[in-house]
């Protein structure tokens, strides 16, 4: 008989070693502070269904009058810009500090208490990334202030009247592109480029080959 067969004790030691590796794995495992709560499909869905995404400048009027106490405004700009001027009552969390444990906990507590969080930066674009990020990790109470601080600064005395103003809305064409940017000569000019354009599409990622 072979040594291996006679000695289950050795096998036991090897298995215990295996167990130790797994236990080490459990202890060294990175536990992320945040996890994706929305799948990619759900994320694209919330981008299309905009009813729950935006906070309009005219809605600010209620918050600033302390009529609507269920809203917390967060300023994502740096401390310097915040010091120069900010929306009254806004809390300053510079965007680079967003992942800090304390700030994430704060946001979680807001979510638990059903408080709407409104993010803003100088303009909508600057707050857009962090906003979409927090929506994807499950903070469904986070909205983005349309127009950003720039728009607020320009209209801070007549916020309630901005309801009819649409100049801060993004994503809509401001020009009739086809009319402004094209002409017959364009087609003539681009005829040169009419030869087929070849783009390289990505190849599948290689997997390791092997066998036994």
């Amino acid at each position, binding site marked *: 008989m072979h040594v291996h067969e006679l000695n289950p004790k050795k096998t036991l030691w090897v298995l215990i070693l295996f167990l130790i590796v797994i236990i080490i794995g459990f202890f*060294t495992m990175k536990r992320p502070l945040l996890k994706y709560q929305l799948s990619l499909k759900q994320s694209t869905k919330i981008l299309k269904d905009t009813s729950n995404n935006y906070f309009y400048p005219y809605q600010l009027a209620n918050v600033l009058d302390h009529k609507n106490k269920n809203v917390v405004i967060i300023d994502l700009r740096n401390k310097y810009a915040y010091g120069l001027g900010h929306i009254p009552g806004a809390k300053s969390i510079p965007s680079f500090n967003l992942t800090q444990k304390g700030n994430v906990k704060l946001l979680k507590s807001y979510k638990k208490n059903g408080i709407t969080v409104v993010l803003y930066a100088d303009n909508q674009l600057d707050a857009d990334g962090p906003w979409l990020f927090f929506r994807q990790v499950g903070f469904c109470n986070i909205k983005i202030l349309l127009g950003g601080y720039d728009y607020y600064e320009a209209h801070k005395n007549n916020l309630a009247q901005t309801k009819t103003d649409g100049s801060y809305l993004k994503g809509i064409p401001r020009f009739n592109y086809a009319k402004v940017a094209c002409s017959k000569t364009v087609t003539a000019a681009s005829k040169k480029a009419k030869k087929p354009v070849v783009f390289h599409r990505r190849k599948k990622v*290689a997997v*390791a080959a092997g066998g036994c």
Partner: protein
Amino acid sequence: MGPIAINGLISANLNLVIAVFLGMGFGFVLEASGFSSARNIAGAFYGYNFVVVRVFFTAVIVTMVGLLYLSYFGWLNLSQIFILPTYLPSMITGSVIMGLGMIIGGFCPGTSFAAVAIGKIDALFFAIGLYIGIFIFAEVFPFLEKFYLSGYLGHITLTDLTGIKAGWWAFGFTVIALVAFWVTASIEKKVRKKIKEYKF
């Protein structure tokens, strides 16, 4: 070296060097666990020695469970692991032929080389036969090609096929394997009583 090589962490040459060492390790373990003996391998079919079944089942369940844990810890990306493509009819035929060969010859391809290394003459003839078989297969391949490539299912796993979580498969196989250990041990006991002379 699986995911290490395709992520560019080691060069193709170093990959080959590692393959040599892994091959040595594989051969060593085969020998150490008794796979170089034709009796041990054929014994699984006659019921007096199930070491082959136990060793292979141990390897399977330890790897299966281990990979799931490694993936969970984030140490290993399971999507980069090579999965053998499945050709159903040819695989079933091939495994039947291989099983017959193992009973008749007492070796499977890998173990025959381990046995050649320790100087077994039957293994030497088995290995020579192996090459003759490969040669014949290569010659008649054009006739077999259609059958060989039929029933292609792609690089699928049981989880892809059934939608059942990999953890359940691992658990199920482990239970089967553990039951098999105890059952085979008792079968061995009964069969060996009838054999008067028993040595390897």
